[in-house]
């Protein structure tokens, strides 16, 4: 215990920020799963995304932080909220909460946890520690990210954009009104 306290005292301001953000992220992530009301769940998920953006900023990845907020918190979560408001899930929907689904959820969640722990403990995936010689504080800035994306990773980048285009066209095709359809 005292060892932990000593370690805690030696933290820098960034270290404290990291711990606060990590605890907040975990708490709000737990709230996402445990909340009875789906709207509360979505709001907690938004809070989680904010904590993750805070972590990105701590890692000097400003661009990723901003894009995370814009895309996830600003667009995708709005659509989540939208759908939930339309579905009106307020009344307790007990049909979908049978013992079978609960068991399946526990098994899937447990498997995911085991897999993640294995990945983090794998020797080949160990993240190298901080090295002051090769450290560049500008790595995560938008200019460097853009240069990297458009030089080394041009093929995956373009493939991803083609995938998005296909998904968009597919969504439009599925949502299109056929000639004889009713208006809504």
């Amino acid at each position: 215990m005292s060892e932990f306290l000593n370690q805690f005292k030696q933290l820098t301001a960034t270290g404290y920020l990291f711990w606060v953000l990590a605890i907040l992220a975990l708490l709000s992530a737990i709230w996402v799963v445990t909340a009875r009301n789906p709207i509360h769940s979505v709001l907690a998920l938004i809070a989680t995304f904010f904590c993750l953006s805070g972590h990105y900023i701590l890692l000097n990845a400003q661009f990723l932080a901003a894009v995370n907020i814009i895309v996830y918190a600003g667009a995708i979560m709005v659509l989540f909220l939208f759908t939930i408001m339309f579905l009106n899930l307020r009344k307790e929907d007990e049909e979908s909460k049978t013992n079978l689904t609960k068991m399946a959820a526990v098994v899937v969640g447990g498997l995911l946890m085991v897999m993640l722990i294995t990945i983090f403990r794998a020797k080949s995936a160990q993240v190298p520690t901080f090295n002051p010689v090769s450290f560049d504080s500008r790595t995560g800035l938008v200019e460097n990210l853009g240069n990297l994306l458009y030089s080394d990773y041009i093929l995956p980048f373009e493939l991803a954009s083609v995938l998005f285009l296909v998904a968009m066209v597919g969504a439009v095709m599925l949502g299109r009104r056929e000639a004889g359809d009713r208006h809504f």
Partner: protein
Amino acid sequence: MDLTVLLVKGLIILVIFGITLLIATYSTYAERKVAGFLQDRLGPNRAGPFGLLQPIADAGKMFFKEDFIPAQASKWLFILGPCLAMLTALMSSAVIPFGDSIRFGEYTIPMQAIEINIGVLYIFGVVSLGVYGIMVGGWASNNKFSLLGAIRAASQNISYEIALGLSLIAILMMTGSLSLRAIVEEQATFFEWNVFTQPLGFIIFLTCAFAECNRTPFDLPECETELVGGYHTEYSSMKLGFYLFAEYINMFVSSAFISSLYFGGYHYPFMNAVHDALTGSMGEITGHNIATAIGTVVFFAKIFFFIFFFMWVRWTIPRFRYDQLMNLGWKTLIPLSILNVVVTGAGLLYDIKYTTWLIVVVMVVLAVMSSARAPKSQAAPQRA
């Protein structure tokens, strides 16, 4: 970072915060005065000289009204809604450069709350969060009309955000930076103001700014005739005040954003000559500071013009129908802004900055031709 610099920085942040609130307060007064002027009446003129105390009287009225929470409403979310609206509105003015820089001693401090190299993305992120205030409030009210208003508002904001972002991309391509200060510095000479190099982008951006602020002609989320009062039907007292106030803050921030993105920010013609004359006659530091002050005044003049423009449009143009709004957003503005990006890129390839005028010219020609071809409407017979 020195302690003095930190103190001055804190002072600047406080001043910007205060100015934002003050301007939003007096925008409510200005709105009613402009409405009075456009409708040929006087507007508020009882509270204080020229009715200048009217905003304070209104605030007092708001505070003393009954703060009502509907019985079946989800209480905390009902309170959270207006708070979120206010918070996101106030956050966005942090990255706007209000002036060049203040010098004292050996320090040079930019007139800006925070200078980050992703300023445009920051504003974009905050704007995209603004919709939560409306959605949470509308849903928590437990009222069909509020929910419908909230859903309308959300779909409108999401739809117009896309065109807003795409019209911005053309500017980012010309500047090569996401920092607002870099974008303003790029427009140092008068004919390089982005409104001259990006006329189409400016019009798209302006339209989308109107839609994002929920201002007429796009104020469908609070359309009284269809939705009682929209997302804030159930709100009263200062919670309603927060929603209304957030709209005025958004208007101020949008005006500041438009002026700094398209109208050169704190730049004005012959500003270098003025700067040189001032530093020559008053010494390096005082002259520079006074030149900065003049630039800031010019910037605020631009902002006030755009706030006036917002009001002018509100009291002139009627509301759109909802399907018209969606058609305009998805079928007109988004394709046009993509075309704008492509043409700007082609122009940059050959180092020509003014290529987007081509689209404007083509569009004007098409509009004139279609209006010339359209059957002449018959003059309505006049009654005696």
